[in-house]
């Protein structure tokens, strides 16, 4: 088992507060690795440093052995990292299909292609539609993104991440704001997805995390206090104390 993503001694501070405090983490190829932790533990800050929105103060991030610590976000995306956002981040004034088509065409290397109409390029549109079918949004393909419900926006986020063809998916609270029924749907979907991509999942929904994850890391005040299988994490005394609020 080789590490697709290797994080060493990562540090990020905001005005003296260490949001990420010497984090070491290895995400193995093909696994679904969840990060849990109380509010303010620094989960989104960590993800942002992996996607390139934030640059760490020190430490290294290796993707497939390649140092990407200081690389800008668009380079990381090219190297195979896709991110879904905790707060929905879509191009609202475009159609659902166009949002996904933008993700599909990102695989082409560059988009300095000025002549052919993007809407008429069959392989782009078909791939976009396929990604939408995977999450059950194909019926809404030609609606404006702004017209979709919150739950549908969450699914679209996933469809876009998938359509980039990225090897590593960073999913930042995909269940955020979903009702029980929608959450269950998302869990089913992520279960199907599991194994086809490497996934780093941040999630508050404990049931979902324990049902999905191969391994779980627990982040508290910017530090990883434990990493292990769901069973190990459940049994870990320090986790129960610091996070699950017992003992």
């Amino acid at each position, binding site marked *: 088992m080789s590490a697709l993503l290797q994080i060493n001694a990562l540090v990020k501070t905001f005005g003296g507060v260490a949001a990420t405090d010497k984090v070491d983490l290895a995400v193995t190829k093909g696994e679904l690795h969840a990060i849990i932790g109380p509010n303010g533990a620094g989960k989104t800050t960590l993800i942002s440093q992996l*996607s390139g*929105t934030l640059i760490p103060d020190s430490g290294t991030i290796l993707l497939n052995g390649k140092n990407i610590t200081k690389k*800008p*976000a*668009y*380079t990381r*995306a*090219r190297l195979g990292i*896709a*991110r879904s*956002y905790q707060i929905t*981040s*879509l*191009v*609202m*004034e*475009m159609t659902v299909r*166009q*949002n996904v*088509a*933008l*993700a599909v*065409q*990102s695989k*082409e290397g560059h*988009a*300095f*292609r*000025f*002549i*052919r*109409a*993007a*809407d008429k*390029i069959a392989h*782009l549109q078909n791939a976009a539609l396929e990604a939408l079918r995977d999450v059950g949004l194909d019926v809404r393909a030609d609606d404006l993104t702004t017209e979709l419900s919150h739950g549908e926006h969450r699914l679209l986020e996933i469809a*876009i991440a998938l359509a*980039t063809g990225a090897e590593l998916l960073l999913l930042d609270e995909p269940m955020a704001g979903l009702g029980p029924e929608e959450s269950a749907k998302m869990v089913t979907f992520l279960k199907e997805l599991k194994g086809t991509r490497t996934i780093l999942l941040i999630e508050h929904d404990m049931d979902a995390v324990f049902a999905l994850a191969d391994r779980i890391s627990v982040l508290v005040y910017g530090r990883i206090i434990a990493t292990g299988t769901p069973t190990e994490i459940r049994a870990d005394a320090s986790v129960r104390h610091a996070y699950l609020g017992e003992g």
Partner: protein
Amino acid sequence: MKSMSRTSWITLAGMAALLILPPLFLWSGNEFYLQLATRLVILAIAAVSLNLVLGYGGLVSFGHAAYIGIGAYAVGIPAYHETYGGFDSIASYDGLFHVALAVGISALFALVTGAISLRTKGVYFIMITMAFGQMAYYLFFSINEYGGDDGLVIDVRSEVPGLNLDNPLQLYLLSYVALVAAMLIVRTIINSRFGMVIKGAKGNNDRLVGLGYNTYLYRLAAYVISGAMAGFAGALLGNFTTFISPEMMGWTRSGELMFMVILGGAATTFGPVLGAVIFILLEEILSSYTIFWQLPFGLILIGVVLFARGGLMGFLTTKWRKP
């Protein structure tokens, strides 16, 4: 779909009117209106090019008049040297040379100023593009050789194979064809994969960067294309007015171009043209009634911006629809 066809219909009708009416004015002895239409169509080209970055790209460039000025001086300066000597390497009446110079220098100016301006966002972008525009303004203002603030008279219009630009109808038709070409170019670009990135970055830049697009480069490319097209419009305007001065590149001129785009409807094919038509006509009509025409003019513009969201094109395509 209904509003789509409405948009196309307005576009085709408007363009047909622009093709037919001005020559009719000429033949019915009202050459003044042909002149008015020529100025209008040339400014519409500049507005269409501004729309690429302002409307579709969401980049509020407040310095686009600079490109018009550069384009006009690219006609005036070579013609001046051909007439009065000096600078043999650029002295020429050749229209193709003028256009190459206008487009080339405008593109270069857009590349350099855009590379810096696009590092900023929002209000800062507006201010810095305006500052670069004013820089170009003061540059020509200070060159006495070319008339400084008095301006420069173009004695001989560009020589274009097969055309005579001294003929007002030919100049008009050339401008009209250029306008149609500009509209088609912007439309093609904006529907392409490149255009998707430009529009996507307007809606959500972080998302596009997260997908792997270095949006800075795409925006810079759009900025250069837009500047080059506006420079071409400037070359036409120089040939039309045969008098150029730094005044045509001042920030108020840039503001007028922005108004045309927003008034007619940003991010639409015909909006900037409609905006230019209404802008020029209003200016003409109101100024014939009162020397204080700018007051009612300003009020009308404010009214349109406040009450017709999406500009006149937005107004025309939504208000007509039956519920």
